[in-house]
């Protein structure tokens, strides 16, 4: 049995994967595309928080919100001027997939030019370690867990208790019917892209003080959140959360057990899960 520290480490990873995956699923359920640039919005969010804290002196929690607003707005621009145009008549899914993949390199290159390639480190905003005897956890990591809980509760309220949330759910289920009932589907798509990118940005921002910040930091979280979605079931928000938890814990425990081969085993496990249940744990089986 792995020691408690490994489970805690896995839980912190889970928090990031589930936040990222939640945003990706949200975008997928409305726009019908996988936003391959999701990891780069995570990276941009980390940079916004880094500069907000170190250059502008904005308190860390407020910086997280700032990163959500700025990167969310950027995501909306991407939706409006790229995704919306490439999902119109005459374009296939390949066009928008290629465009979001191209944006990976665009954002990484632009970040490299603007912020430099050297990894940047933020001073720990919540210094100190909570020593529980059998394990220790830094206050910064506790903040990641609390942040995720707040985000998940907030998203639950937004999706279930607000008008825009109901519009999002309606559009996800029946876009044509939702449109007939007066829901502006184009506007909903824009809002959802903004929320999805804001979640990725805040996830990157909250991890800024835990890990270093560099233009390429979004790649692994993007792949992991994609796997979390696949495990949980494409299109299922519950699946994204459960998939994120499973993946984070598995990643940490397997890495503890077998070191550098962990990713190989992890991906084999993911394939095995999909062979047994192709629709993922919470996805609907295709007819």
């Amino acid at each position, binding site marked *: 049995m792995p020691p408690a520290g490994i489970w805690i*480490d896995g839980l912190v990873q889970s928090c990031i994967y589930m936040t990222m995956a939640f945003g990706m699923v949200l975008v997928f359920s409305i726009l019908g595309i996988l936003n391959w640039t999701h990891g780069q919005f995570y990276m941009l969010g980390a940079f916004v928080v880094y500069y907000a804290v170190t250059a502008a002196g904005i308190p860390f929690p407020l910086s997280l919100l700032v990163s959500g607003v700025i990167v969310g707005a950027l995501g909306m621009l991407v939706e409006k001027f790229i995704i919306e145009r490439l999902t119109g008549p005459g374009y296939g899914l390949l066009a928008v997939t290629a465009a979001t993949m191209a944006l990976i390199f665009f954002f990484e290159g632009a970040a490299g030019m603007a912020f430099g390639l*050297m990894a940047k480190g933020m001073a720990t905003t919540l210094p100190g*370690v909570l020593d529980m005897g059998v394990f*220790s956890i830094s206050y910064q990591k506790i903040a990641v867990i609390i942040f995720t809980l707040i985000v998940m509760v907030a998203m639950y309220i937004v999706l279930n208790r607000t008008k825009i949330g109901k519009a999002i759910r309606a559009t996800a289920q029946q876009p044509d019917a939702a449109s007939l009932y007066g829901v502006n589907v184009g506007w909903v798509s824009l809002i959802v892209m903004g929320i999805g990118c804001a979640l990725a940005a805040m996830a990157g921002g909250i991890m800024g003080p835990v*890990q*270093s910040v560099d233009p390429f930091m979004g790649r692994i979280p993007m792949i992991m959140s994609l796997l979390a979605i696949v495990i949980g079931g494409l299109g299922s928000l519950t699946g994204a959360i459960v998939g994120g938890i499973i993946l984070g814990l598995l990643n940490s425990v397997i890495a503890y057990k077998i*070191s550098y081969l962990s990713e190989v085993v992890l991906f084999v496990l993911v394939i095995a899960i999909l062979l047994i249940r192709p629709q993922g744990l919470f996805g609907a089986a295709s007819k």
Partner: protein
Amino acid sequence: MIKKWYKVSSLLVAVVMVLTLLATACAAQQTPAPAQPTGPITINIGVPMPLSGTAAPWGQIPTPLREAFVQVLNKQGFQVNGQTYNLKLIQVDDENTPEGGSAAAKELIESDGCKFFAGHWSWNFSAIAAVTNPAKVIFLTRNGAPDALPASWGGGGAYDPKTMPYVVFGTPSQEEFLADCFALVDAFPNYKKIGLVDSSVSKGGPGWVAVGKALDAAGVRYASEWFAPGTTDFSPMLTRLNQEGCDIVFVAGWVGEYMAMLKQRYEMGYKNMKVACSGPFVSMDIYQAVVGVDAFEGAIGSYEAPWAFKKTQVNPSIIAQCQEAEQIAAQTTGAPYDYTGEFPWVPAHVEILTQAMQQAGTVSDPDAIMKAIRGGTFDTTAGKWTMSGAQTYGSPIVFGTPASLCSIQNGKEVYLSEHPMEPLP
């Protein structure tokens, strides 16, 4: 008629040729002898370096110091046959790729007229050597590049002393790593076990096998761990090393990963676990910011400040030059300059080159200069090195560090221990 014309024309041609010869001879007599230059002559030194891409920091960070060092050298210049010479470093981005290396080498030779390359670091040895050797350009590099290393060290075996007579390289990274290991043991004789950490890319390579044999022979207690490229979470690895009884973790020069390990071992409560790196600290500010002041305390790294060495003798005048260069670099950057890792690179290379030119009595004959390098002894920023070549695959040694370590105390580098580097058998 034709015969007559032939005779006349032959006579005319002969007259023209004689006149031309005479005119040329007169012109040569009248041309004044080239005036002896009164000021120093500048010799361009090409420095192919990664200035873009993910490896860019390794080209950018040392730049202020290497330029400052040459600036200090140029105050007096160096004399060869009574003529004073200065050096000029010309850096070109080699992108850390074979294509970039080849293009950079061609640019440095063809556009900038460089006859010497120094400070090469990137993983594109073969591409650059393929350009420099035919041009008889003396190329000072390192032997850490996997394509250059002999197959017995797990490399591509690109280096061949017979076909690459103008290449000068030094000791493999593994030898430095080994010497640092011994320096750690010297510093902490009561250690329990050292956890050696490297990328899984290096796992099982002959170089590591040689290191393992040398550690076993010396009776060093150690465990090995490997991380996949791109790993950012080292908590599982650190937990395992802790359970294996390792009280020292020694990372093979991976700066980002080292920082993550320092931070994460602190967060996991392994405060007594010492974490060391075989590379020098890039910048105190960066480490403190990334790792956190508390977690950075006690960190161990290479320390290549010539004035701090206790076992390696460095010429006092060179120490003074290094200290002056460090001050200039600090003025240039507007912040304390504490990256000591550059001292055994370009500064050592230019010391070897200038002294070899003086010993050879020429700045333009690469064969004579190479003859001086082979078997010569040179005063460098990393101590006095005799270029035997016997232990380095037929090439003279150019790059070697004294395996000096420091630990961070109150945010500053404090000398810890030192172990002379001996090439592996």
